[in-house]
């Protein structure tokens, strides 16, 4: 639960909103071409989705424990591996969430 007050929360929402709109509008406003983005920047932008998504997913599944066993035998990691296999086979968001949550509950309420 956040300890930020409403002013800080709204401030963050508005700041992210304005910056995101500026990003969306940037080239549409300038009506430039894709060639207007320097090639190196374009190359870097290609890696934003995998890098960011992995940086979001990994810490939610893995917490470095005192031992290797404690790190690997984590219900979140095991459920994540099951969901990852489903994502790879089906590329379906619903199926991935369904299997992942079912696996988490199985480990949490029945196994561990």
């Amino acid at each position, binding site marked *: *639960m*956040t300890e930020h007050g409403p002013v*800080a*929360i*709204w401030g*963050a*929402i508005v*700041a*992210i*909103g304005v*910056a*995101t*709109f500026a*990003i*969306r*509008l*940037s*080239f*549409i*406003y300038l*009506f*430039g*071409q*894709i060639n207007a*983005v320097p090639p*190196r*920047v*374009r190359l*870097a*932008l290609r*890696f*934003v*989705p*995998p*890098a*960011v*998504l*992995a*940086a*979001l*997913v*990994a*810490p*939610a599944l*893995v*917490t*470095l424990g005192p031992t290797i066993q404690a790190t690997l035998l984590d219900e979140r990691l095991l*459920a*994540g591996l099951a969901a*990852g296999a489903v*994502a*790879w086979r089906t*590329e*379906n*968001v619903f199926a*991935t*969430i369904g299997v*992942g*949550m079912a696996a*988490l509950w199985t480990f949490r309420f029945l196994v561990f």
Partner: protein
Amino acid sequence: MNRDLRAGIYDALPLHLGVVPFALVTGIAAAEAGLTSVQAVGMSVLVFAGASQLAALELLGETAPIVVVVGTAVVINLRMLMYSASIAPYFADYRQRTRAFLAYFLTDQAYAMAIAEYGDEGDRDERSYYLGVGVSIWAVWIVGTFVGVVVGAGVPESWGLSFAVPLVFLAILVPAMKGRPRTVAAAVGGTVAVVAAGLPFNLGLLAGALSGIAAGVLSEEVSR
């Protein structure tokens, strides 16, 4: 309703199926972070970019500094610079105000659908088709967030509903890891984020994202 607008909505229907769970999870995450339903829906209207909203909500929930919350969300949305540049030529003939209106609806999905369609056929009205895709996704997103925040507030903590958040990311990440450089970017980004999870100001996510991007660029340049 004109033909091209309808075609856009129709083509976006399968995408809506993917947007629904994403929106629900975003609403649930907002409730768990301690946002009110007005704040949650307000965020969906003002930001309208799921991955950045989820990251911001997670950081807000941990009471991370606001600068880190905003900075992380903006880095995640930088990819839309690419979409903006790529779609700009198709919108070049519209008035300034129309272009600003169209830009608001630019998402991963609307961009992908519209660009594919513009390449295909000559007689589509660009604006109508794009708005059919974009506005229908927007409506699903807003309603879904609202339902999520209402439902999410009433579910017991032990169900671990917030675990659905990384699962949504996982479902988008796996197909995004096509080819070696992208896989390297993901592997490095994830590893750094785990190792850096204890960094002050919750900078782990930002550190992971930036090192993942750098690793992807390096891998691409080495393989050339």
